[in-house]
């Protein structure tokens, strides 16, 4: 299929069957809002992950310290013990599970504070589930260890991180430095959905909302360089979520 389709899925672009590489994850959600928590737990289950829920900071800390989770999702403002202090306590105990912080405080300095406290990613409320899911999968995968490889391969597309050479089949593709970094990030997370905000944050290091969707234009430029003229497009748009690079032939 040319464009990643999801018309029959319940959440846009998120069925377990669609993202073939999805490995079930064990997640812990520390969130005091019962409604939001129920919604998330249910949504995670629908896409094939197992999510447990803690309603306050103390309970969350106990569960997180004992259980073996792939990713922790921590709300910043929690009863009994606030999110940042939970993370601090966990890191002190040597628990290195990746943490994503959810917060109503979305300004740049709040984010910096969250990351400094030991969080690995920061998502301001309100968020879309697809954004949350994409970020969690990237966090979980990071543990797996991709990123150390010197050459990324997706189908017949190859990216050499040392020599900065990109080839598809036998042809060399010339990319601008930014296009190279964009492709590098996409390929590092091949098979995973990457949202526009994630690209803006990780490729450009910008943390604001650029009103117009400038990222789409950059993607379509990149696409015209790596996919144009090939029967098997690799860079796919996941409607309502973002982009994903993967070998569609598999």
């Amino acid at each position: 299929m040319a464009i990643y389709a999801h018309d029959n899925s319940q959440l846009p672009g998120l069925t377990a069957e669609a993202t073939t590489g999805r490995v079930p994850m064990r997640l812990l959600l520390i969130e005091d809002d019962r409604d939001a928590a129920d919604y998330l737990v249910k949504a995670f289950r629908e896409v094939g992950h197992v999510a447990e829920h803690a309603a306050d900071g103390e309970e969350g800390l106990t569960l997180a310290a004992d259980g073996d989770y792939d990713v922790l999702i921590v709300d910043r403002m929690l009863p009994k013990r606030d999110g940042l202090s939970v993370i601090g306590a966990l890191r002190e105990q040597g628990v290195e599970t990746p943490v994503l912080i959810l917060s109503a405080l979305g300004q740049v300095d709040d984010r910096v504070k969250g990351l400094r406290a030991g969080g690995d990613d920061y998502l301001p409320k309100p968020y879309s589930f697809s954004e949350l899911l994409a970020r969690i999968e990237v966090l979980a995968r990071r543990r797996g260890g991709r990123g150390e490889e010197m050459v990324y391969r997706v189908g017949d597309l190859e990216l050499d991180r040392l020599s900065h050479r990109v080839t598809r089949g036998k042809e060399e593709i010339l990319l601008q430095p930014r296009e190279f970094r964009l492709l590098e990030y996409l390929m590092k997370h091949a098979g995973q959905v990457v949202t526009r905000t994630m690209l803006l944050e990780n490729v450009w290091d910008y943390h604001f909302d650029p009103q117009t969707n400038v990222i789409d234009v950059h993607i379509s430029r990149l696409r015209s360089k790596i996919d144009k003229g090939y029967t098997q497009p690799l860079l796919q748009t996941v409607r309502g979520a973002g982009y994903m690079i993967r070998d569609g032939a598999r």
Partner: protein
Amino acid sequence: MTALGKLFRTTTFKLTLAYLVVFVVFAALLLGYFALNTRRLVTEQITDTVNAEITGLSEQYRQGGIRRLVLIIEARSRRPGSSLYLVTTFNGDTLAGNISALDPGVLDNPGWSETGYRRLDEAGADRGHEALVRVFQLPGGFRLLVGRDLEERQRLERIIASAGRWSAAVVVLIGLIGGVFVTRRVLRRVDAMTETARTIMGGDLSGRLPVAGSNDELDRLAENLNAMLERIEALMHGLKEVSDNIAHDLKTPLTRLRNHAEEALRTAKDEAAYRGALEQTIEESDGLIRTFNALLMIARAEAGQSSESLAEFDAAEIAHGVGELYEPLAEEKGLTLTVEADTPAPMVGNRELVTQALANLVDNAIKYGGAAASTADGVNGAAPEIVVRAAGEGDKILFTVADHGPGIPESDRGRVTDRFVRLESSRTEPGSGLGLSLVAAVARLHGGELTFADNSPGLKSIIALPRGGPVQTTA
């Protein structure tokens, strides 16, 4: 009485009193010193005269004996305004002189003494006058007394004392009157300020403290307070405007959202229709979230920031980064975007906010810069151009975004930075209407400003920021 009490309690009046006391003490010391010296001078003069006479008379005695001395003294005694003379025998019997009475015991002690006396030609028994006399033992048992009346010296002392009293009285009086006058003047101004402050507290934020124009410390205080009031009024005005605008610009899409949901409930027949309505709902709520975020950001920027979010960065690098981000979008719209920032322009500020402000300007230029392109530039066949510049100029860093779009009419330039203001001509373009307000807020936060100029044709938006970053306190 209370008005007077208030007067006496003022700082100015207390200061006046303190100065008055210091001045009076100083004047008294000065006068005392002067009196002491004058007295010494007069006394010296008297002793010199007396010594000279005694030397002369004892010389006469040595040459002509007691007879000659008596003759000379009798002659001298008769002269008007003469000194005081007395010659006695060893027993104290008067031989010659013009004194009829002296304080007892004066004659027994040779040397200087002050004594009351009475002249021979005066009636009565009292020793009414004071004199400074010297008693001299002549060889042969005679005693010679020569003295001068002290009237002159006493008169001088009286004059000085009375001058002292009068001047003290005058100084105190003038000082008090001056103190009251100055204090009342200051008090009136302070009262006027207090009164204005009360009306302002009462809710009339347009009130301003009176400035006398004398450029003194009270004026400076009033000017600073007025500047503060200006800022407060602007903030309050902004706050009111925000709530009005929130009411309008957030409620409108919220109503739309609700209407769509209701309509779907009522009319949707199949799953596809529900799905369409839900997708529309998500889209609209995303728009709401975006507006809300922009509002929060502006509020934060306007409230000021902690100095820890300030850092040094290169303005040229920011311009290149933003240019690079938007270049493909511009190209897609048929515009060329060029960045002219070749020399590094280091500055201090909030990097994230400055980047976003510049991005907003470029975003606007791309949105509106293409609109008039077909008419303005299309004629000469050149692609409509957007130029982004970042350069240092004096102590400022200027970010300029120039487009060849329809521009902003001169009359609207002040208004476009207001929140939610979208010129009629741009109502059809998507956007929250907050872009330029954010830019203006970021500029203000850094102690700079956002201005617009004619690019003929088109618009030139300029963010001017001080190189050194926001000034924490105004001098």
